[in-house]
């Protein structure tokens, strides 16, 4: 008798850490609200500041829901440790989606949380704010991918919640691919490093998160000096991942990049005939 497989979950709100950027497709308002409360509870439990970006509900309605469902949320709302903002006023200045301004708005909140002494900012975003959607849906996916480098300092964790009943399947699939973490898909975690200067990668890379890895490596293209890509934490990498690492080394120029691979990455590079891309 054949085993019929349902894909296991490999990323969830409950497992979120600072530095994580999770895409969470949901099937209902109830599921979205539950995940939002879960994120708020986790962030507060970690001593962090929590920012909930509301759209389907008003901020007042969301705050009331969180007060009832997330332990400590009522006190946190009063103290400012938990904040609920109306997404469109916060992210769509002038009513227009400008990815750079949207990103700047978030980064200002990350800086503010740090100035206020919090160890990190935990964000739950109802992505319905992007509906009915920009003229070019690719702009939203590019924005999601381009956000990834901002998570590498481990000052922020974010969950972007997409309602399957409101977004088309192609956009959901694209959004998942732009995030390093999606339930049931290859989990990629990463951190910018200073000694040595570079990027540390861990987890898995496959078709489901190639675009997230691409965004991280593209950020390295502009980094001056010698950089090290510490890929020793990668348990699985596919051929495309090897190409992306190799391409980064080529773009940066000879001798300016070191790739420290795990045994599986080193074996992959050797098998593909590329040898050491940093050699």
């Amino acid at each position, binding site marked *: *008798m*054949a*085993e*019929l*497989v*349902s*894909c*296991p979950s*490999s990323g969830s709100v409950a497992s979120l850490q600072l530095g994580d950027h999770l895409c969470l497709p949901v099937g209902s308002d109830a599921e979205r609200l539950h995940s939002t409360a879960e994120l708020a509870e986790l962030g507060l439990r970690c001593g962090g500041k929590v920012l909930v970006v509301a759209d389907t509900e008003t901020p007042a309605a969301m705050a009331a829901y969180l007060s009832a469902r997330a332990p400590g949320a009522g006190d946190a709302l009063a103290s400012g440790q938990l904040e609920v903002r109306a997404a469109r006023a916060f992210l769509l200045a002038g009513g227009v989606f400008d990815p750079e301004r949207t990103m700047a708005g978030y980064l200002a909140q990350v800086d503010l949380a740090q100035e206020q002494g919090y160890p990190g900012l935990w964000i739950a975003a109802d992505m319905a704010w992007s509906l009915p959607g920009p003229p070019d849906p690719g702009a939203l996916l590019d924005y999601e991918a381009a956000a990834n480098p901002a998570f590498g300092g481990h000052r922020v964790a974010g969950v972007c919640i997409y309602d399957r009943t409101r977004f088309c399947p192609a956009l959901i*699939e694209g959004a*998942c*691919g732009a995030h390093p973490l*999606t339930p*049931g*898909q*290859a989990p990629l975690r990463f951190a910018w490093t200073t000694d040595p200067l570079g990027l540390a990668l861990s987890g*898995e890379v*496959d*078709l*489901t998160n190639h675009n997230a890895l691409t965004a991280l490596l593209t950020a390295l293209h502009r980094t001056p000096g010698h950089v090290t890509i510490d890929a020793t934490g990668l348990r*699985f990498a*596919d*051929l*495309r991942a090897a*190409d*992306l690492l*190799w*391409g980064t080394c*080529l773009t940066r120029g000879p001798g300016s990049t070191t790739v420290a691979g795990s045994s*599986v990455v080193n*074996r*992959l590079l050797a*098998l*593909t005939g590329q040898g050491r891309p940093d050699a």
Partner: protein
Amino acid sequence: MPEPLARTAPAPALVVAFTARDITGVRRAVTRRAAGAGLQGDRLHDFVLAVNEIVTNAVVHGGGRGELRLWDNGQIVECEVRDGGPGGAAEVAGDPPLGAGGRGLRLARLLVDRLHVRESPGATAVRLVAALTGNA
């Protein structure tokens, strides 16, 4: 070199229909089944990587979906990946440039003991075989 199982082989131990978002789950299921059959170490990783590349090809080049079946008989582990597109799982021929894709099939051939491509109108099936002897 191990021979693929005959078409009269027993029912597969694993049957999975997949699309792009299932790739990770399919890989884990293949890993569990191949490891359970006795494939170990680098040979297990090589087999799983090869299957992953063929499944990826099926999604990217073969119509976005496919079906995977896996058998084992105590001597070999065999996996078949079928897609619904012309040349998807088998991928394009030739020697494409770096980053252009199209090298997955070539890599897969290096990773398993035997690889067989069968193309028919509108579909491609790739069979990958790893022997259970010679584990690292």
